[in-house]
Each structure stands twice: as structure tokens, then as C-alpha cells.
């Protein structure tokens, strides 16, 4: 019973924290991109426009909610719910701070600490893409949502394979599917990014494609299909799509840090909860910033280029890399 109560408490805390994070992430995105383009960005409401996202949220709650006539109403309602729920579900298994040993056990900072955490992430990442697919289908044959969600489907299938293949290398090296065990395995060695530079770079590329951000934001390419899958949505229903996307982005960065960059370990001043906490969030914040940085600077790839990168370059490279890792591990090469 204690486990259930703890789970519910952690769940509520995570829900609130992630909502606040998304709120201020929109402010951060706007501010950073404005600076990159020599603008000021939001600045009127609060300190440097810090309360702007609150105003936006209140506005979008009171907007008129229009549903197109030819749409499948139930699917139209369901699509943003699926997307947001699955995005939250992914974040349940990700530890957001190093575990603390307390009297009578270990306090984990993930909602559930399961042995198949990496697989859980893939499972719900796949389910989350149904939110996007249904959004396109339910819009009632409207062209742009349809094209956008088709792109999301194809992009998700091709890049989730690459994500899985690249994460297989750290899994093989640590022989575990649990994030905390994988981080613990990296304290004995160097970080896995030094053993697996190829997998690290492949994951970095696939990460952008899976969370559908620039340069791979083809499902919602503004200049081609003017926002893609959520064109027909309005008000808060529309707001839920970027909301979930920001959570996926954070979780992808966190997994990157946990699997390749040693989680809460640092090159110096490590050990202890506070040091671990600071190291972990500095690394995660860097990758979250990287998404915004790419958004402000990079152009968008064409769709066929995206597919070529996925299937013709990244897939063979990551398969070969797995062969190399397996060989190195079973032959006990030095450093492995």
C-alpha cells in the first residue's frame, strides 16, 4: 500500500512540475530565438516577459473551440488526449534526480522504477504517435493535417528503429534495461559516449527526428503545410500538441544524458545528492537548449532527404556499430 501512495504522490508532483516546465519552456524558446534573430522577444508582462506564458494559457482556455463539420468527432477529441497522456507516461520511468538511500530502502526519483524502463519508453513513444495520426485522420479529409500525420507516421517508424538500435549499445555494455543501473555501470567506466561515439551521434540525429523538431519538423512544417497535423484544432486542444512535444523533448534529452553521458556523475565533484542533481540538470538543460538552438539556426530538410538519412545512412551504420560492440564485448577488447 505504501508503494501505491508513494507512486501517486510522485505522479502528482511530476504532473505539476512538468506543466510548469512546459509553461516556461515556451517563454525560453521565444526569448532565445528572439535573441538569435536580434529581436527582444516577450518583455511587457512581468520580469522580461516571464508571465507571458501564463497569459497565453488563460487566453487559449477561453478561445472558441471549433470542430470541422466533416470530422470524426470522437477521434478528434481523442487525438490530443492520447498524445499528451502517452508523453506523460514516457516521463514516468525516467529518473529526474539521483536515488537517495534512506532508512529502509532507496528513494527513487522516477514515478516507477521498473526493469524494462528503456522498452517502456519505446512503447509509449510509439503509442504517442497515434495521437498525431488520429489528429490527421479525424480532421475530416482536410489536406494539410492528412499530409502532416502521414509524414509523422513514416518518420516515427523509421527513426524509432534507429533510436532502438543506437540505445542497444549502452544496453549491451551495461546488461540492463533500467536507467539507474545503466548510470551506475558508467561510474565504473568512462561515460558511454566515449566508447560509443557513433551511437551517440546517431542518437542525437534520431532524437531530433523522433520529437519532430527543426531540422526534422516535417509533420508540422509551417512553410509547406502551415502547421501540419493540428491545423483544424483550436484553443486548448491545439495547445496540447506542443505541450506534449515539449515533454517528449525533455525526456529525450534526459535519456541521452542517462544512457550516454553518465547521468548524475561528473568528471569532478561527484558523489552526494546535490552534486549529482546539479550535474544531471546542467547536462539535460544543455540538450534542451540544443533543441532551441537548432530551431533558431538550422533550415528544414526535405522529406526525401529525411528518409534517405534514416534508411540509407543511419540504419547501416548503427547495425554495423552493434556488430562491433558485440564483438568487442565478447572478445574482451581493452577498455570494454
Amino acid at each position, binding site marked *: 500500500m505504501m508503494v501505491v501512495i508513494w507512486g501517486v504522490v510522485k505522479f502528482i508532483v511530476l504532473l505539476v512540475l512538468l506543466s510548469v516546465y512546459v509553461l516556461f519552456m515556451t517563454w525560453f524558446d521565444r526569448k532565445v530565438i528572439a535573441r538569435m534573430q536580434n529581436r527582444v522577444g516577450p518583455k511587457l508582462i512581468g520580469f522580461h516577459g516571464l508571465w507571458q506564458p501564463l497569459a497565453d494559457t488563460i487566453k487559449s482556455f477561453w478561445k472558441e473551440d471549433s470542430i470541422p463539420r466533416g470530422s*470524426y468527432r*470522437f*477521434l478528434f477529441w*481523442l487525438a490530443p488526449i492520447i498524445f499528451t497522456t502517452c508523453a506523460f507516461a514516457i516521463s514516468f520511468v525516467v529518473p529526474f534526480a539521483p536515488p537517495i538511500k534512506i532508512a529502509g530502502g532507496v528513494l527513487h526519483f522516477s514515478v516507477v522504477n*521498473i*526493469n*524494462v524502463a528503456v*522498452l*517502456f519508453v*519505446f*512503447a*509509449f*513513444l*510509439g*503509442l504517442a*504517435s*497515434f495521437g498525431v*495520426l*488520429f489528429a*490527421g*485522420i*479525424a480532421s475530416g*479529409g482536410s489536406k494539410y493535417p*492528412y499530409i502532416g*500525420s*502521414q509524414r509523422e*507516421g*513514416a518518420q*516515427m*517508424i523509421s527513426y*524509432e528503429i534507429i533510436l532502438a538500435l543506437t540505445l542497444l549499445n549502452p544496453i549491451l555494455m551495461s*546488461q540492463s*534495461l533500467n536507467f539507474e543501473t545503466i548510470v551506475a555501470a558508467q561510474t565504473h567506466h568512462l561515460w558511454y559516449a566515449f566508447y560509443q561515439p557513433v551511437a551517440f551521434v546517431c542518437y542525437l540525429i534520431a532524437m531530433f527526428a523522433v520529437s519532430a523538431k527543426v531540422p526534422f519538423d516535417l509533420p508540422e512544417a509551417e512553410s509547406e503545410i502551415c502547421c501540419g497535423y493540428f491545423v483544424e484544432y483550436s484553443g486548448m486542444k491545439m495547445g496540447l500538441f506542443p505541450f506534449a512535444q515539449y515533454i517528449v523533448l525533455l525526456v529525450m534529452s534526459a535519456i541521452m544524458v542517462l544512457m550516454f553521458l553518465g547521468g548524475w556523475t561528473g568528471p569532478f565533484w561527484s558523489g552526494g545528492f546535490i552534486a549529482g542533481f546539479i550535474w544531471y540538470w546542467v547536462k539535460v538543460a544543455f540538450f534542451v537548449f540544443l533543441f532551441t538552438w537548432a530551431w533558431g539556426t538550422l533550415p528544414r530538410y526535405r522529406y526525401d532527404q529525411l528518409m534517405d538519412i534514416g534508411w540509407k545512412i543511419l540504419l547501416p551504420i548503427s547495425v554495423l556499430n552493434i556488430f562491433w560492440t558485440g564483438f568487442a564485448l565478447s572478445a574482451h577488447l581493452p577498455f570494454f
Partner: protein
Amino acid sequence: MTQIVFFILSLGTIIGALGTILCKNAYYSAMWMISAFVSLAGLFVMLNAPFVAMLQIIVYAGAIAILILFVMMLMDRRVLNNKQRFNPQYFWGIILGVGLFSDLAVLAFKFRINISNAGKSLTLHGSNTKMVGDVLFKHYLFPFEIIAIILLIALIGAIVLTKKDEEEAR
């Protein structure tokens, strides 16, 4: 507690399966199919097989259902909505389904399945991911490889059957 969860999940599976074949709209059918797959994964979790459950979601609900939806999206939706739901040979399906159901019902009656055991896990505890790998790659390596080759043959066969020759296409 576990009984309630078990009954919710099994109801979800059955309703999902029924919805898949009874829904008029093909897209709603796909949605019900996904919900059936996900509840089935929940049943696997209750049996202490989280690895199988996650693979169930990744492979069936993730990859295969996306491919099915993808194919439906490439078709014209007016064509899709005017399709007949059942083809003329539906009675074979009915005979098979009724036969299987009565078979299971007779078995359940004969062995006096105890409802109070519902949801209780009677399998091994703990992580079985490692065990699955051990069994597949140590004890059953040969059948595993043969299955892989058969799947490869099916893949190549699908490509050969659907690919038109360049000469023929002209």
C-alpha cells in the same frame, strides 16, 4: 484488487476485439484494435512478463498498427467507407469462432476454473528479460535462426510479388 484490474483488462481486450470487427468506420476499427493490443499487454504485465508486454506494445500496437493506419490513409476514404464489412465467406469465420469458443468453454467447465484465482500470477517472479535471452540464444538457437530465415523469405517474397519489372511496366 488484482482481480478487479484483471477483469478490467480482459474486458478491455474483448471489447477492443469486438469493436475491431463490428465498427462501421475503418478508422474506429483501428482504434479499437490498438486498445485491444494495449489491454493484452496489461494482461502480460499481470503475469509478471513485463518484457513480453513491452514487446507486445512496441511491435503490435506500435509498428504494425501504425503500418495498417498508414495503408488506410493512403487509400481514398470514400472507397474505404463504402467497402463491405464482411465478404461472402463470413460463415466460415463464424463456424471457426463458435467452435473455438465452445471448445474453450467446455475446457473451462471441465477443469472447473476457479474465478477467485483470476489475476493471480502463477509464474516466476523477478526480471525475465535475461531469461528470455538465455533461452532463445542458448537452448533454442537453431529454431530461432530458422524462424529468422523464414521471415526473411516472406519479406523477399512480398517484394518480388509486388515489384513490377521495368520492362513490363512500359
